[in-house]
């Protein structure tokens, strides 16, 4: 089954926040934000803005009735700055006007006298000065010092990966509408119904029960709408005070300049292998470039730490991870949530090790792949490992060794162009590493006419979670999918929902829905037995919109059954709850069982390098990816393809440039994400056959984030080609822009 929303998307009929018909008199808000990366606010002049055409009000921190705080984990992020600013783009004042244009123009008239203080933009410098969020995290398994002593090959060095702008097409936005009894309804583009609901109530100083938070769908999110609630809370504040509807829609450049990004990382790594190429030890220090507030950075960092060994068995490992507090906008979640960065470290280290050893890196990777019975650094013993299975499925398709040899041969005989390939294995833990978040609930209502409405805490953002839940509900109840409707995600129906993130949207909310549908199924089965005067309910099944006894269809169809059950006073509504079992993680030692299961994959990326111009074209990618038993092949393929390209963008052309004073320089005219011509001409995705997964709903596996890791292949394929040009230089960092490629070759 396809994503249900597509039929509306192609007509432009899908309703996003800015498409909601606004109530009469709806006002528009804009933010005045800091132009200084760090400083003390001595005074603020809002008089000119307040007097500007159409302006209704200008608010500062003094106007906040509740708590001036939107910090997601730590209470370190005021909604509106009080006496200091810590990054460029930090909100200081909120302007409300009759139109969006007027609000944006008036925001330019606010002036602030800010005494500039020294700001830090380098995570290593921040670390040296003790500017970190939380504590330094350390994960140790085995004894790396002793192991290094036994190694034949040891490689160490430093490297870095860059930030990435989410570039969801729908920028941050919300519409807030005051309602009766001092309540307020907020329609927003948000991945976090539960948390944002709480943030709104806290800032307004009212109980959560008085806030209705409603999410229909998002025009993309990729993690960027998970933790930072500023742009949802701000219009709610204005609407609450003014008792008028207020909408806030960020412009593209406001979004690029002031919102968080994927975290850049710095690495100090050291890897050791024996003569046969077995990895014996790996040490890495991860310096995370977190930004001014903690936001969700420590959770991201924890995931990097837990994935530091990638897809490989590493008997002795030491991972040190620090979240460095710098004066840029607080970085946040982005598809992969630290796993791409954690995985990068070991992929890079292995690549360097292969060079020193003079062997084909793909052999080295294959040799060290995880297998059944291996124990990960945090003590989790693995079963049903599909790392080798994915690798070998790919190998059968492309013949990795032959491809490698062909590239080597090509590069011996060509000087104008060079080829490169990279094989990237994926091992991605599924569950929120924060155990408490692994919960979801679902409310399933069967109406007397037989139609069904399902509400969950899952947020639809293009990933097809609503369609997957619809399939699960219909299959469990034994009815056709057309009878099942998914509505908006709404806190009046589903409270305290975890964010739709960590790829778990369908896993958690799908399972809760399955539970609710199973309960309803049982009630209806019992009732059907009674109704049909059949004494054994276990011989009754509901399927194909009908009641069966011992696999024989009866006269009783779904509609009649439901109508009769309602008349017989059977409860046709059911709420169910799911909490992923057996998860735990010690927050100090990082030992535990943080994940329910793992998603695996292997890919081969191929690039052609133009040596003269320093440009490159990806001519092919072959991906084998494990999605368990797919709930929707159409949706899962789309998720794989989209994640791969997004990962390739991060690896190559997506570069954020900052001015020396910490301003993002690369607006929409310079920050370039992949376009249709960037996409490799050959792009083949194989969903791993015969994979099952007892740990998630209907044997499926999560798919949103894991395939992003394949995108690393773009970086490593270019490195491969670059090394064919010259070997006498340090390798450039990620992203590998045409500029870095050119300078490696020609400078």
């Amino acid at each position, binding site marked *: 089954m*396809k*994503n249900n*929303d*597509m039929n509306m*998307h*192609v*007509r*432009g*009929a*899908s*309703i*996003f926040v*800015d*498409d909601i*018909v606004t109530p009469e008199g709806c006002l528009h808000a804009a933010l005045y934000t800091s132009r200084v990366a760090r400083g003390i606010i001595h005074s603020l002049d809002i008089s000119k803005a307040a007097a500007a055409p159409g302006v209704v009000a200008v608010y500062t921190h003094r106007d906040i009735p509740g708590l001036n705080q939107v910090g997601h984990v730590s209470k370190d992020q005021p909604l509106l700055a009080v006496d200091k600013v810590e990054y460029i783009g930090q909100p200081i004042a909120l302007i409300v006007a009759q139109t969006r*244009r007027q609000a944006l123009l008036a925001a330019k008239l606010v002036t602030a006298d800010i005494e500039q203080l020294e700001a830090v933009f380098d995570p290593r410098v921040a670390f040296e000065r003790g500017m970190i969020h939380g504590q330094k995290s350390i994960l140790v398994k085995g004894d790396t010092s002793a192991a290094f002593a036994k190694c034949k090959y040891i490689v160490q060095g430093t490297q870095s990966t860059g930030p990435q702008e989410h570039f*969801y*097409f*729908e920028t941050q936005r919300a519409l807030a509408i005051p309602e009766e009894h001092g309540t307020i309804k907020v329609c927003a583009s948000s991945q976090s119904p539960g948390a944002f609901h709480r943030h709104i109530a806290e800032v307004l100083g009212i109980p959560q029960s008085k806030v209705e938070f409603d999410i229909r*769908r*998002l*025009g*993309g999110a990729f993690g960027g709408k998970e933790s930072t609630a500023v742009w949802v809370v701000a219009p709610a504040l204005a609407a609450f005070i003014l008792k008028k509807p207020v909408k806030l829609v960020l412009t*593209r450049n406001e979004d690029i300049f002031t919102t968080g990004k994927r975290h850049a990382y710095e690495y100090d790594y050291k890897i050791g292998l024996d003569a046969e190429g077995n990895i014996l030890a790996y040490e890495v220090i991860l310096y995370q470039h977190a930004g001014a507030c903690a936001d969700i950075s420590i959770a991201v960092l924890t995931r990097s730490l837990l994935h530091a060994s990638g897809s490989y068995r590493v008997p002795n490992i030491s991972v040190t991870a620090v979240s460095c507090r710098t004066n840029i906008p607080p970085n946040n979640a982005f598809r992969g949530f630290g796993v791409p960065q954690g995985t990068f470290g070991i992929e890079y280290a292995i690549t360097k090790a292969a060079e020193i050893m003079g062997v084909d890196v793909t052999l080295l990777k294959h040799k060290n792949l995880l297998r059944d019975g291996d124990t990960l650094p945090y003590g989790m013993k693995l079963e049903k490992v599909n790392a080798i299975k994915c690798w070998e499925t790919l190998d059968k398709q492309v013949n990795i060794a032959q491809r490698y040899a062909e590239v080597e041969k090509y590069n011996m005989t060509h000087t*104008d162009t060079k080829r490169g390939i990279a094989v990237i294995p994926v091992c991605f833990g599924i569950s929120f590493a924060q155990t408490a978040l692994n919960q979801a609930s679902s409310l399933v209502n069967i109406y007397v006419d037989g139609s069904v409405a399902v509400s969950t805490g899952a947020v639809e*953002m*293009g990933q097809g979670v609503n369609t997957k839940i619809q399939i699960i509900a219909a299959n469990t109840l034994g009815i056709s999918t057309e009878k099942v409707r998914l509505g908006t995600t709404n806190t009046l129906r589903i409270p305290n929902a975890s964010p739709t993130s960590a790829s778990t949207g369908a896993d958690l909310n799908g399972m809760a829905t399955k539970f609710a549908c199973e309960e309803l199924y049982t009630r209806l089965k019992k009732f059907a037995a009674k109704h049909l005067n059949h004494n054994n309910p276990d011989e009754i099944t509901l399927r194909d919109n009908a009641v069966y006894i011992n696999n024989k269809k009866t006269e009783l169809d779904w509609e009649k059954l439901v109508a009769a059950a309602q008349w017989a006073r059977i409860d046709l509504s059911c709420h169910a709850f799911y909490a992923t079992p057996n998860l735990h993680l010690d927050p100090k030692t990082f030992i535990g069982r943080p994940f329910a299961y793992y998603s695996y994959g292997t890919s081969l990326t191929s690039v052609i390098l133009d040596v*003269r*111009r*320093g*440009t490159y074209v990806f001519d092919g990618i072959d991906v084998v990816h494990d999605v368990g038993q797919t709930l929707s092949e*159409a*949706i899962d*393929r*789309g998720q794989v*393809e*989209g994640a791969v*390209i*997004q990962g390739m963008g991060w690896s190559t*052309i997506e*570069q954020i440039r900052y001015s020396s004073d910490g301003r993002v320089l*690369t607006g*929409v*005219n*310079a920050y*370039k*994400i*992949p*376009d*249709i*011509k*960037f*996409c490799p001409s050959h*792009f083949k995705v194989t969903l791993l056959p015969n994979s099952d997964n007892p740990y998630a709903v209907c044997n499926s596996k999560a798919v949103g984030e894991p395939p992003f890791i394949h995108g690393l292949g773009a970086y490593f394929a270019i490195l491969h080609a670059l090394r064919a040009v010259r070997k006498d230089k340090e390798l450039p960092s990620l992203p590998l822009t*045409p*500029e870095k490629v*050119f*300078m490696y070759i*020609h*400078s």
Partner: protein
Amino acid sequence: MLSFIINNKEICTDLPSGMVLLDFIREEQHLTGTKEACREGECGACTVLVGTMCPDGISYKACASCILPIGDVKGCHIVTVEGLSGDTLNTVQRLIVENNASQCGFCTPGIVLSLTGFCLTSETFAYEDAIDALDGNICRCTGYVSIRSAARCLCEELRHICDNKNGRIPALIEAGVLPRYFLDIPARLKALASCSVSADTSSKCSNSNTVPVAGGTDLFVQKPEELRAAHIAFLSRRSDLNYIRAGDASLFIGSAVTIEEFRNSPEVLRYFPSMKSDLLRHSSHILRNKATLAGNIINASPVGDMSIILLALGARLVIEGKDGKTRNTPLEEFFLGYKKMAYSCGELVREIVIPLPSNTLFNFEKVSNRETLDIAAVNTAMHINISADDKIVDLRISAGGVAPIPLLVRGLEKFYGLKTVPDTCLAIADTVMNSVTPIDDIRGSAEYKKLLLKQLILAHFDTFGIRQVTK
């Protein structure tokens, strides 16, 4: 008053002509299928079709509505996603669904419009042309694989209508791409024009406060607020400026000619066949449909692709003064300093004159972070005349992104008479490199641009088949 048709509805409005069409569509007409995602023409989410009456009927182009003022669509037929289908999906929409080419859906209406525009204009339904038509439509979700599949299916389904003799619009109605009401649009536009009471003065520069706007694709990014309130003369509607003529050893290009018209012009391609592919590197389809050669010059960007091409080709400008008299200025004398030109307020570039090549070779090189729809780090063009005995007779090299102006490199006469052997080529490349002083900016470091320019000069010679050593 401005009048035009949106989808199946006549519109008459007295809103400012500098208001952008996207705002009019969403805020005034409440047609929310057209999305705002960048307001700079960089993403394609707001793509609409603009149908303009021309002597042989109506011609539709896909354009970015976020930088298209409503004054510029006076008398036109605007098609948004809502105007494409009735109860059933049109062919493009159906194929997008069948190929799963939509995820979050925010970019999807723009993709539907660009592909529908392709159906209206493609001569052969070649798949590569369909992809070119989508080069301005960015999608953050799908990774494009499914969008390509939809485009491929579309070409296969529609290829047969190339032979349809009844005209493209009836053929597309039959093929389920367009709704029936498209047939009546030309007549309705004519009726609209005739009942319009005000004289057509909007394209004339009536006073010095008037801002002449050609494509507007950069102006409406840079100064949307000023232009909203301004009195604008829309040059795109002046038929006297919209021509491409060959003759008198030159090509004469009117200043209303768009990059896309130039790129596809048989006259241009007869003399400069590489323009077809060279200009694919210029912005994107939905921008090239509005952006003009003259606008790209007047914009005076030091890295403007069209300026760089025309400098190497030795083009000159015909500029009309306030008094109606014209003067000729070689393009290389036009750029004086950063965004400073030999041009005063009230003047108008009427024409661009390009000398026709005779035994010359031409090549354009551009390197940008992303290959398409991106501004160059460095661009350069070379125009060279090599005699039968392999000696340089004439050599013009332009370079962008390396100076405050689009630069024509001086002092190359010393290479005249030399053979194009590797040493000479290298010497030329070094001379060019040493004549420029780029700066560090968001397109790259000064050092990068300098070294890149040298390699791109050598790449010109590569392209001409004059072999070089790699380094």
